[in-house]
């Protein structure tokens, strides 16, 4: 897995690049709709699938009575099927009319998370992208498992610049008297 900062930056860049322009807002920090949900979705596979497993693994060294299966129980949060189910589940916490959109944003973020993770290489094992239907594992192996540490110093300023540039563009379009397109 890459770190949460890398995943969050990639999710923000994805949103900035993929969301079409919207009418400028009175709120200068206004960002494309669903950004927070998308970023949350990109972080959940690690927050739910890795953090508890890592904590339990370390805890078991001191408390061996903790059953081993408790470590593995969280892993489905880090496979595509689990991410889709988790997204539908989490979306139930949102208003009825927003659930479908929220589930899509969460799932999109989660799948983007996996797309970043499969770039890495690990010794002998990849990601179980087809679990539970197949134990086929896959990773592209283009970067080392710690390569993101060297990427973050560049990725973080780039993300901040991209968000700032978007805000600036929208501000300029607002100053020029932006008019929303007529409704069809």
């Amino acid at each position, binding site marked *: 897995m890459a770190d*949460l900062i890398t*995943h969050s930056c990639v999710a923000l860049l994805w949103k900035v690049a993929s969301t079409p322009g919207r009418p400028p807002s009175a709120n200068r920090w206004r960002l*494309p709709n669903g*950004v927070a949900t998308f970023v949350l979705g990109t972080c959940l596979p690690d927050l739910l699938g890795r953090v508890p497993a890592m904590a339990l693994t370390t805890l*078991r060294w001191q408390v061996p009575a903790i059953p081993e*299966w408790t*470590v*593995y*129980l969280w892993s489905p949060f880090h496979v595509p099927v689990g991410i889709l189910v988790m997204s539908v589940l989490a979306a139930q916490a*949102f208003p009825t009319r927003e659930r479908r959109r929220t589930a899509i944003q969460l799932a999109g973020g989660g799948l983007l998370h996996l797309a970043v993770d499969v770039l890495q290489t690990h010794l002998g094992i990849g990601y179980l992208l087809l679990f539970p239907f197949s134990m086929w594992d896959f990773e592209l192996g283009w970067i080392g498992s710690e390569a993101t540490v060297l990427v973050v110093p560049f990725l973080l300023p780039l993300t901040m610049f991209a968000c700032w540039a978007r805000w600036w563009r929208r501000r300029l379009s607002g100053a020029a008297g932006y008019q929303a397109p007529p409704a069809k």
Partner: protein
Amino acid sequence: MTRWGISALCGAVLLGLGIDYAHVAMTAEQGWRWCLEAPAERQGAHVLFPLWTVTRVVDADHYEVSKVISGVPVAGDCSRVHVGDTVSVVALFDWNDGQPVARVVSLQLHPLRPWKEALGVIGFIVLGAVLPWCFVTRSEGGGRVLAERETWGG
């Protein structure tokens, strides 16, 4: 189906996936545990320890690594490893007359791992501070639901 029905169904599916994953992981026909089940037959089998932690250095040629299984004895040069290091080891299983040991074929050190973990912790703290601000609760149908904050969406 109601909101609670969908939630219960999704929860049950996730629990089932977790149980299936645990079963598969604990019965896999590879790894240290599998070798110990029939050590004589599996003498010389390849075992992989990707991203395991060095938890003890015994002497100049022996140390222990831990992850889900703790205290796996490893035979290999200790000059480059220290307690707390993260390593990836390719080894051969050696029953060693009742004292099983993983004999190192290749060793990969991960010196940037602590930095990566630090980035993970920083990211966790930043998200914990920022994301709750991005959502609000509101009333719907006699209950409370989450909504992305209007100032963030648009």
